[in-house]
Structure formats: structure tokens, C-alpha cells
């Protein structure tokens, strides 16, 4: 049984890390009152950016260009939604579509339509002395690529920032009452723009993680719905950073279960487990699993600027 537990935890963390990165970014976006469905596109752009950057300049610049690619998608969202007051859902849908088309086209144009497997440098695991030797969870939690440790630091940092800093309070105020925040002298548009850019950067980083710390290659559409899952995780995590980590772990565990089932040769319908986190999210939204309250202005289009 132990030889099943360790791979299970490892697979859980592996799946959870890019989801958590993307969801932590989307969390700030949503706390500012916006829903960016273009997150899926940012992740995909990040994955492609990582491929281009890493195959030319190595892992570090791979991550940098992943972030840059995510930022490009986020910038478009800012231009349309924050600046021009266009509808968030439609803009986000279009940006995801744009990213799918653009990465697919560029990939086939640059690397050939056969999509030959590219071997690019990847981010090696960096074991933390002592902790990595813990039984069962040691390897899964503490012998990971550095990007994993970033998540460990980022979540509590964001929780503190949201709860304890002036800027965090301003962000939450915008999400709940943009008009009141504006009246109180908060630069609503600027804060929203920054939140979207932060979300895009983390989305890009999530895509970079898929390529540079996991798959070691790029495939068309490899974001595979993670952007949408991240949006679910934000809701499941009740719009708090630590809740988001819990949500990401739950989704990670659900997908790890299918590997465990396959490894054990159990003929159970693992699709049921894959669907469970989504059902839990719906239950959470309905208030069945504690009270999940969305930011009051979430998804609303603001009045045009006068």
C-alpha cells in the first residue's frame, strides 16, 4: 500500500501546482470584481512562451517568457474590459479562442505541422534537506521543482496582503462596491488593471510550469481546461488564498485517484472521481459546504467613464 501512497501524493501535488498558480492569480482578479475566462488562454500562451524561451535560452528565460506571454493576454483583457468597458465573459472567451488559434498556428509554423516532440531543458527537482526525507509526503512536497515552493510562499503572502495591507483592502473594496471605492479615492481602473496583469502573469507561469517542470514539451491545447478549473477552484476556495490551495489539492487528488485506480487495476469508473470536484464546487456555491460568498460586483460591467 505504501508504494501507492507516495505516487498518489506526488501526482496530487504535480496536478495541483499549476492549478494553484493560475487560481491564485484569478483570485485577485475576482476580488477586484472581474472574471477573466481568458485565463485559459493565458495558461496556453504561457506554455507556448515557455517552449520558445526555453528552447532558445534555457529554463530561467523560459519561465520569464511564459510570464510575458501570459501578460500579453492579460493586457488585451485590460484594454477591452478595464479600459473600453467591454463585456468580460465575451472578451475572455475571445481571448481564449485567440490564444488557442495563435499558439497552434505559431507552433505548426515554427516547429512543423507534424508536431515533432521537442526536447527542451526542464526545471530539475530541488530537494529541501531534511524535509525531503519525511516518509510518504517528503518527496511529494519537498523534492520538487522550485516553482512548487513558490506556491507555498505565495498563498500565505497573498492571504496576508489581502487581509492586512491597505492595498489589499482597496482591492476587496473594489470587488464589493466599485462605486464606493471610487468615491473613497481609490483608482479603480488602475487597481483592476494591475490585478488582471498579476493574474495573467501567474496564468502564464502556470503554463510555463506545465512545459518546463512537468511535460518537458509543448502540445497544442495543453492547457486542457485548467483555466476553467482554476476559476472553479477560486469559487471552491471561497475567494481566499488558503481556500484556493485546498481547492487545488482537491482537484489534484481527484485526478491522482484515477492513476491510483489504474495502477491497482481496479475497474472502477474513475470519471466519477474526476467529476466530484466540480460537483463539490457547485455545492459550495450553493452554500451547502459552508458559506461561499462571491465579491458583490463580480462580473458586472462598470458604467463608462465620464
Amino acid at each position, binding site marked *: 500500500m505504501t508504494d501507492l501512497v507516495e505516487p498518489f501524493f506526488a501526482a496530487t501535488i504535480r496536478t495541483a501546482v499549476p492549478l494553484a498558480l493560475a487560481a491564485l492569480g484569478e483570485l485577485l482578479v475576482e476580488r477586484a470584481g472581474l*472574471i477573466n*475566462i481568458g485565463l485559459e488562454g493565458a495558461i496556453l500562451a504561457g506554455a507556448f512562451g515557455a517552449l520558445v524561451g526555453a528552447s532558445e535560452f534555457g529554463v530561467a528565460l523560459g519561465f520569464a517568457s511564459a510570464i510575458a506571454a501570459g501578460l500579453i493576454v492579460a493586457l*488585451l483583457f485590460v484594454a*477591452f474590459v478595464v479600459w*473600453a*468597458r*467591454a*463585456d*468580460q*465573459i*465575451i*472578451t475572455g*472567451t*475571445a*481571448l481564449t*479562442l*485567440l490564444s*488557442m*488559434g*495563435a499558439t*497552434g*498556428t505559431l*507552433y*505548426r*509554423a515554427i516547429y512543423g*505541422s507534424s508536431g515533432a516532440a521537442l526536447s527542451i531543458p526542464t526545471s530539475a527537482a530541488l530537494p529541501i534537506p531534511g524535509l525531503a526525507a519525511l516518509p510518504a509526503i517528503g518527496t511529494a512536497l519537498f523534492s520538487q521543482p522550485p516553482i512548487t515552493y513558490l506556491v507555498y510562499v505565495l498563498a500565505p503572502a497573498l492571504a496576508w496582503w489581502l487581509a492586512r495591507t491597505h492595498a489589499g483592502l482597496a482591492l476587496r473594496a473594489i470587488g464589493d462596491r466599485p462605486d464606493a471605492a471610487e468615491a473613497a479615492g481609490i483608482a479603480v481602473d488602475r487597481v483592476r488593471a494591475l490585478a488582471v496583469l498579476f493574474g495573467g502573469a501567474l496564468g502564464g507561469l502556470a503554463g510555463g510550469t506545465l512545459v518546463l517542470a512537468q511535460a518537458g514539451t509543448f502540445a*497544442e491545447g495543453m492547457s486542457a*481546461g485548467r483555466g*476553467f*478549473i482554476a*476559476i*472553479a477552484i477560486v*469559487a471552491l476556495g471561497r475567494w481566499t488564498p488558503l481556500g484556493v490551495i485546498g481547492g487545488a489539492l482537491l482537484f489534484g487528488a481527484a485526478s491522482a485517484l484515477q492513476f491510483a485506480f489504474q495502477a491497482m487495476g481496479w475497474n472502477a*469508473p474513475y*470519471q*466519477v472521481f*474526476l*467529476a466530484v470536484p*466540480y*460537483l463539490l*464546487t*457547485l455545492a459550495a*456555491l*450553493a*452554500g451547502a459546504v459552508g458559506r461561499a460568498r*462571491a465579491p458583490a460586483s*463580480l*462580473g*458586472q*460591467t462598470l458604467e*463608462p467613464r465620464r
Partner: protein
Amino acid sequence: MRHEKRPRAVWRDSIVRELAQAVIVLVAIVGTTALLLAVGGYAVDSGLAALWRGSLGSWYAFTSATLVRAIPLLFTGVAVAVAFRAGVLNIGAEGQLLAGAAAAAAVAISLNGFPAVIVVLLALAASAMGGLAWASIAAYLRSRFAVLEVISTIMLNFVALHGVSYLVRGPLQEPTHIYPQSSTINDAFHLPRVVGAGRLHSGLLLALGVSIVAGWVLRRTAAGFRLIAAGESPSAATSAGRIDVMATTTLTFLASGALAGLAGGVEVLGVTFALYENISPGYGYTAIAVALLARLDPWRVVATAVLFGGLEAGAGAMQRDAGVPSTLVTVIEAALILAVVAVGALRRRSSFPDAAATPIAA
């Protein structure tokens, strides 16, 4: 909203304007495609020629490729248009389509041996009910708990995807239990082909009927008036119009789900003849673009669904004949939506309802 008869000159003006807009859209598409081809270093003339050949260049391409792809986009496009008009942001057409496809396949497979007409009608009814039932989950959460339908329908899309994946490996799997798909539906239950039009099936007529009726309901009936009023301003509809906004939007949501479900049923009975995992290449998502470009009008959806069906059909030909990545067309679709969004936002009078994303407290 216009219930009075409009004078003939107004009709003529609006038709001229529609045609002008259609020409602008087509020119923009060809121009953008040419530009992208040139930037990508592909031969512009052979790329465009392949796009033409694959979509409109021959009767066969038009019927068997373009129109066959347009049918599910028509159903889902109308489904999305109607919902968005009522301020219901139904992103779940994909999941509702899958639920409809599964329901239709289940009925058609299990009723083997019954009279064909009855089975086909039952299967289509089942697909509409399947889509409706799938939408009802999000509609209930919206009305009872004020859960944003944007989030809940995305969740339900994934649940539907995993659900179909389970069905084709479990209860609905073909008898040999080798392939993850259902058994093939009896030939007698296939939707009849349109004579002389290749693979084109009679689901097109149903799709056209649906969009004509939906457009008529929105334009000419009290129910359509309530729907649009609820979408444009829920508070005004409640206070000035004595309209039960929640009942109106919930019913619209259910109807939208039923239409998207029909897309799945028609696809199963007319094209795939079996249920399998990748039965929809994202029709439910493309539908958002189709509906938006049609400015949320079911009649215009006929044109935009054919346009997108043609683009996707042409994309395949570009890839085959000119070596141009078919994903180029996705870029063009996205650019088209963004252009529409930008024009609407900059004019400050997008036809998109202001209250669209505002949940109404239970």
C-alpha cells in the same frame, strides 16, 4: 421591442444596412486571412483558394462540409443568443449539447426494433429534455442561491464531459467493450439525407425552423418582450412592467438548454450515429461567437452559423491543400469577436444587455 408595423422604406434601409454589414464582415475576414497568410510566409493566393474550395467552392463542399458543420452551430447559436438576450450568461451550451447527445443515443439504441418515426421523434425529444435537465441545475442554483451561471455552467460542462466519458466506457459502451463509444445507431433511425446534397441531413430544416420561431418569438410575442425587457433592465422590467424577471429568465435558461440539447441529438442522429467522447469539437463555445456576431438575433444566427461552418470547413482544406495551419481560422474567429466587442464598447451602445452579468438576489 418593435410591435408596430414599420413602413416599407425603413425595411429597405435596414436590409441595405444588414447587407452592408455582412459585406464588411466578409471583407474583414478575407483581408485578415490574407494578412495572416502573408505574415506567416504562406502563399496568399493558394491559401485563400483552398479556403474557398473547402467551404463554398463546390456544391459538395457547401452542403457536406459547410452546412453540416453549421447545423449544430445554428442550434447552439440560437440557444446562446436567446439566453444572453434575457441576461442569462449560459456558457454551458457545450455541456447541454453533450447531455442531449447522450440522451438521444440512449433512446435510439435502447428502442431498437420500434417504428423509426417514433424512435427518431422520441430521441429528439429526449435530447431536448436532456439539455433542459442539464441547464435546469444551473438555472435552479441561479434562482435559489444566486449562483453566477457563468461559473456553474462551466462546471457543468466538465461534469458532462466526464459523464459522457463514463457512459461510453460503462452503461452505453458497445457490446465488445473494446472502444470507448456506444454501439452504432440502427440505420433506420438516421435522420434522412437531403436529396442531392451529399452528407447534408434534414436536421438543417429543424435548425432553420428553430431559429425562425425563436426570432419570431423575440420580435412579435409578449413572451419575447418580457424576455428582452428582463435582460435589458431587470429592475425596470419588475417595477414598470410588472414582469416576473426570475420566472422569465429561468424559463429562458431552460429553453436555451433544450435547444443546445437538440444540437446534440441531431448530431448523433444525423452525423456521428454513435455517442463518443469527442462528439463536439467545441460547438457550444463557438456558439458564443456565432451568437455575438449575429448580435444575439436568432434570424441573423442563420447567417453567422453558416459563416463559421464555412470557416471551419475551409480551414481543413487550407491545411490539406496549402499547408496552412487550420488553427489560423481560430485566430480569425477570435479577431472577429474582439472586433465586434470593440465596436460595441466604443460606440457605448452594444446590443448586449447591461444587466447581463448581474445576478438577481433570490
